[in-house]
């Protein structure tokens, strides 16, 4: 039984989700992660784009684990005379869900998204939205924020039974799984835990990291949608039914041998899993598997409801399943005929 039964440290997950880290400004999150994992790795470095790479030296396969640290948010593009701000989205932000959400800047300033008078609901476009930070003039606003500054959506962390809800579960929960695995991992493989940047704006950090590391094999950790809520878009993934093994998304179709490897490992260790067929979106492995001459890649996903909202909701059992599965994969031989 490879899994250390010590309970996972969910206060760490809470801290990670509440840390400020929109795409492009991930250093607070990576610093927090670096402090957490330092005792458990042989070496650590940060690359040009800001990816944090924690290395476990070994003599076996060279394996890259990727979880992205960035979260979606908004960036200030204009401040008007009366002190209202206009903004642009960072990453996959659904405009029609924005009215009256709160955002937080790095310096703690809070803003509320307001909406102009609309003739018809369909008129709700980005240019009808503004940010109200309580300033009464351009000058006053400028003392608090500046053009080009980013903010993230506010959404505190709550735990009710086995369910946890917060902003930025996407993908701090993936980072959390990577950290908890790193703490428990005993393996001969050379494992690179890469906490990637700028996933939400086009898997950019993973692309350069994979090129630099040139691993034999890569596994990304990210969230995926579910189809288990009332009248949801049909999707077979359900919360609390185990970690999901990705088969397909818009960025990658998983090699059948990778699928089989992950599923067999899960079955051998009695870890429940689900198959993930995601009809939209992609993740870090989309960039990694096309790096150089091609890198066999897989994804372990954590089923998550309400992705890209301040109330991303996950289940404790699925997180523990993901930790167990990744440990089992990394502690096994990882012998694949496609490597």
């Amino acid at each position, binding site marked *: 039984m490879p899994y250390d039964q010590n309970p996972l440290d969910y206060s760490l997950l809470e801290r990670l989700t509440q840390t400020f880290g929109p795409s492009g400004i991930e250093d607070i999150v990576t610093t927090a992660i670096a402090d957490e994992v330092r005792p458990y790795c042989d070496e650590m470095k940060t690359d040009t784009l800001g990816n944090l790479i924690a290395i476990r030296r070994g003599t076996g396969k060279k394996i890259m684990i990727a979880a992205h640290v960035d979260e979606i948010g908004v960036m200030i593009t204009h401040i008007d005379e009366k002190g209202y701000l206009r903004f642009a989205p960072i990453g996959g932000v659904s405009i029609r869900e924005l009215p009256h959400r709160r955002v937080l800047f790095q310096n703690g300033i809070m803003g509320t998204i307001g909406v102009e008078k609309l003739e018809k609901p369909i008129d709700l476009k980005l240019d009808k939205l503004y940010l109200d930070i309580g300033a009464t003039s351009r000058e006053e606003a400028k003392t608090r924020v500046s053009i080009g500054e980013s903010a993230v959506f506010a959404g505190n962390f709550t735990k009710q039974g086995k369910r946890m809800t917060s902003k930025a579960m996407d993908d701090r929960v993936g980072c959390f799984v990577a950290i908890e695995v790193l703490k428990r991992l005993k393996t001969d493989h050379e494992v690179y835990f890469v906490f990637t940047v700028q996933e939400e704006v086009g898997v950019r950090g993973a692309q350069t990291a994979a090129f630099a590391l040139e691993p034999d094999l890569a596994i990304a950790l990210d969230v995926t949608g579910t189809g288990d809520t009332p009248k949801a878009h049909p999707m077979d993934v359900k919360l609390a039914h185990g970690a999901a093994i990705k088969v397909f998304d818009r960025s990658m*179709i998983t*090699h*059948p041998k990778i699928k089989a490897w992950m599923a067999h490992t899960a079955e051998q260790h009695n870890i429940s899993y689900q198959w993930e067929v995601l009809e939209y979106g992609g993740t870090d492995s989309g960039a990694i*598997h096309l790096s150089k*001459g*091609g890198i066999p890649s897989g994804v372990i996903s954590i089923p998550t409801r309400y992705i890209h909202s301040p109330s991303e909701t996950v289940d404790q059992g699925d997180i523990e399943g993901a930790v167990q599965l990744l440990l089992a994969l990394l502690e096994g031989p990882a012998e694949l005929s496609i490597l």
Partner: protein
Amino acid sequence: MNNAQQSSAKDFLKRLSENSGVSGYEESLTPLVQAEFHPLADAVYTDALGNIYAHKKGTIGRYKIMLAAHMDEIGLMVKGIEQSGFIRFTTVGGVDQRTLLSQEVIIHGRKPVLGVIGSIPPHLLSDNGEKAVKIDEMGIDVGLPYDKIREVIQVGDIITLRRQCIEMLNQLVAGKSFDDRAGVVVMKICLEELQKIQHAHDVIAVTTTQEELGYRGAITSSYTLNPDLGIAIDVTHALTPDTKGQVDVELGKGPAVAIGPNFHPLVYEELLKSAREWRVPYQIHPVPGRSGTDAWAIQVTQAGVPTGLVSIPLRYMHTTVETIDMRDIVHTGKLLAYFIAGLPEDLEGKICY
């Protein structure tokens, strides 16, 4: 025209077409392609994404010419299994939902399972048949109860559209996945021709994977090869009554040689020169931007690759009745062979701007 060559090409095309190889799941085609290329090449090998390379050495071998034709096809994937015994699915690649009703499929579960994509009887539709049926409203009928389905089929299983090739008048053939297995047949003909003609440069015919999902196989295989010149072979739309004004290339009038920013002007010129010199019929295929083919990936590989595109005219692309003229396939293969054999020894000097 050499009829033996054309009929063996047709036989290879049929075997490729009636086999399954949806993007990412091309492995079932590998033995077939390898066996066919093995006698024509010095080495045949594969890589992590499943691309198959057939390497034929040239007399000098200082430069590498990459040919690329993709073997993957569009298809479907199991998304869910309903208690009522119907299977929900999503698409892999650009599938037109309007081509799916009443279509037979093979679900690649623990064993292959035949299915029919069910359609709601017209008398239950309120819209008088004006609207296309959406994929979410379709289900695959496999004639099995739920429990039996669960024993053989899982979410994530790949599904191929099923179609036997049919022969029509004037050496036309119709079937599925001629996009781009016809291109694979072209590469075979090209290598056959190169057995007879001397060529200075190495030729690596790459049967690529995952083109339909964004030429992913071409991205990695061209990185691996880092060729000095690359030619993608794909299909292009041929004129039909409903594409007038949108399409200029015609069936049966020879390979379509592409011109545009995706292609090196000298590669284009040389292809045309070879066609004229060897009396191969050809058509000009203007592509003002993104070509949507492996050529788009090959051109921007590493420090850049001078790239060309030669296309086989084809009607009804991405349906299961893609229609092609066998003579166009043979002509395309021959044109490529003449082009390769005609390239100067000093390739680098030739292709610099």
